[in-house]
């Protein structure tokens, strides 16, 4: 299929002859067998690709178990995937231990998030500013009330019950939303003329970028309670969020700084000539241009933050990977040789879909930006 379609792309003159089989053969000779050496490489790669595809199909389909209410059937098929493990645990993987009766609150939060995000991401839709303000200021409040409850007659749901994909999304989005303003401030501070401000920002950014997220999370989970007054207790999820936000702020600051540096000098001077003060100059002239310029970089940062949320497993929170890992290791009912592989495959597929979609979006934006600059 893909070969057919790309054949017309790669050698148009062959496709023009009208004979698809002939065109395919021409294309194959050009792209795969131009010389004896290349032909050998191609043959080896065809065998390799075929072997990988066949081994995967064998595991995922031919030898796999598709139904059952516990691991019994899976134990009988030690070479194939154990799909009923996923279908039975789907609720746990997606929502953690969030009470069944309250799941509509999570789903409503997703719908509200999509209602803001989709028009924001599609180019050409108006009201971008209003939508961004909704996503940054209004939505977080609504989401917090909906998910956590305790007011307006909604029963309180402890954060210890949040888990799975829900927790992954919460940590990633709160992390990016909280670190965004902090990242802007740090980027501005790093380019400030005031030496103390500049050196504080440089110190913070380089310090955080020089250490692994694991140590920052350890610090947030073990040291943060020590830093606060003795009578203040702080939620485990909140600690992780503080750690993630402080960590990603340093990376976002560097991305935004790239945008600030790319703004021509004339823009700064024009703002000065208009008599604008520092904050007006930055807020009205420089930042809107700089941030639009680095949107692809911001999306890439969000992708790495999204992947990095899995590290909260290490401080005992159960995001998607954490809860899959826990079900794989601790649930004796579903124990079988392929339970672990199946669970990891599911978690990997979910992460892959999210990250791949975001990276496609970021590169399409990048292409659009590049074409705008050239014209």
């Amino acid at each position, binding site marked *: 299929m893909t070969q057919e379609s790309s054949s017309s792309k790669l050698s148009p003159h062959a496709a023009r002859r009208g004979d698809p089989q002939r065109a395919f053969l021409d294309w194959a000779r050009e*792209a*795969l067998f131009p010389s004896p050496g290349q032909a050998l490489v191609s043959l080896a*790669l065809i065998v390799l690709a075929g072997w990988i595809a066949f081994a995967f199909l064998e595991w995922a389909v031919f030898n796999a178990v598709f139904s059952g209410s516990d691991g019994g059937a899976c134990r009988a098929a030690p070479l194939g995937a154990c799909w009923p493990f996923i279908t039975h645990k789907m609720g746990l993987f997606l929502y953690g231990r969030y009470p069944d009766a309250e799941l509509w609150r999570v789903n409503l939060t997703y719908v509200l998030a999509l209602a803001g995000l989709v028009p924001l991401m599609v180019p050409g839709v108006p009201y971008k500013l209003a939508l961004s303000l909704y996503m940054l200021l209004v939505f977080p409040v609504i989401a917090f009330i909906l998910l956590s409850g305790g007011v307006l007659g909604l029963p309180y749901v402890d954060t210890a019950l949040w888990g799975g994909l829900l927790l992954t999304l919460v940590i990633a989005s709160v992390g990016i939303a909280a670190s965004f303003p902090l990242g802007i401030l740090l980027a501005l501070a790093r380019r400030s003329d005031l030496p103390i401000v500049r050196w504080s920002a440089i110190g913070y950014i380089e310090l955080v970028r020089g250490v*692994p997220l694991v*140590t920052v999370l*350890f610090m947030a989970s073990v040291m943060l309670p020590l830093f606060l007054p003795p009578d203040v207790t702080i939620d485990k999820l909140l600690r992780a969020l503080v750690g993630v936000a402080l960590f990603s702020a340093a990376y976002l600051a560097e991305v935004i700084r790239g945008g600030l540096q790319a703004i021509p000098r004339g823009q700064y001077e024009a703002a000065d000539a208009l008599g604008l003060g520092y904050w007006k100059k930055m807020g009205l002239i420089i930042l809107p241009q700089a941030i639009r310029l680095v949107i692809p970089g911001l999306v890439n940062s969000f992708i790495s933050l999204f992947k990095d949320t899995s590290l909260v497993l290490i401080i005992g929170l159960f995001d998607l990977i954490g809860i899959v890992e826990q079900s794989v290791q601790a649930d004796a009912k579903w124990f079988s040789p392929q339970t672990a592989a199946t669970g*990891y495959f599911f978690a990997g597929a979910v992460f892959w879909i999210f990250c791949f979609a975001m990276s496609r979006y970021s590169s399409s934006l990048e292409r659009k930006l590049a074409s705008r600059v050239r014209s």
Partner: protein
Amino acid sequence: MADLLTRLTDRKAWTRAVYDPQVRAVVFQALLVLVLALVATEIVLNTAANLKKQNIASGFDFLTRTAGFDVSQSLLPYTSKSTYGQAFLVGLTNTLLVAALGVVLATALGFVLGIARLSPNWLASKLALAYVELVRNVPLLLQLLIWYVAVLRAFPAPGDALALPFGAYLDKRGLHLPHIALAHGGWLALSILAALALAWWLKRRAKQDQKSGPAHSPSLRSAGWVLAGLVPVIVLIWSSLGATVRYPVLGRFNYEGGLSIEPEFLALLIGLTTYTAAFIAEIVRAGLSGVPRGQREAAAALGLSRRQALRLVILPQALRIIIPPLTNQYLNLTKNSSLAVAIGYPDLVSVFSGTVLNQTGQAVEVILITMAVYLLISLATALAMNAFNARTAWAER
């Protein structure tokens, strides 16, 4: 006195001061320092109070106390009677070991994949693309779990180990290799060092000759290169004639006698290598396609083959683009090695921020030391790569 009073009450002077950028800068920075100092004092006071309340000692005395736990893999002599300080060193060397090996392997794999991405062979470039997109978009932690739990731990028990060539075995306890002890190790090391020194000197001479014409006859120079290549090989043959090889033999529970590599180490190394290689491949691809098309065409016009053009014309220029982001990837790999804690490889974080922290409770000291070590490693790598970069980058015309 009266003068000062009039100046202090002069409203215009105050207004002028409020709008003076220099005055504002001083006031603003003083405020920042004040706020930072207040936050720092608050943190220090709170921490002291909390530690006192929880009866946790402070200071670095714990480093000399007996650790009392075992470590599964160690390059240094270590027993459960060793101190926390020694446990720290063991963790640090384990981190450095996996990071150094990972950097070398990931660079090799990444360059192969990056070059394959631009190959005229359709299948090679598409397979490399599929690899990059697959590996880049899945969290490293999950990949480590897959390698450790789903792949390496799924190998058979020692009894039915998978036999590999050269008398090696792979089972769920890890990879068991023959242990080779070369004879005359000192001479071997000496000859390699001498050959390296000779090669370095010859290279320098060649550079000088290029500038000011040959000072020695070409045959003398070739003799030097032959000597530099041949001597270590002869010494290697001589020392492998007397080498003793101990093959792993299945004992009562496990393979014994050979060189055993723990599955935790293998999983971490494979995971870090394959993950970082995907990022390096993209960097290499961007670097290679960043070299202007004319360079490739000029190389072809000079009659260089594709391989020669890549090695002599394209790569040296691409390296200038590649090295800065490559440095970042090396640093990422080193930092990512801290995920070892999830699969139980005794790296710095796992041994020190994990076990030692739990046993002593001295969170502040332990985490500060750990962070300082990573900062130092980052700084050292950045400095080394900057020096290398300064040498490869040449002035634009």
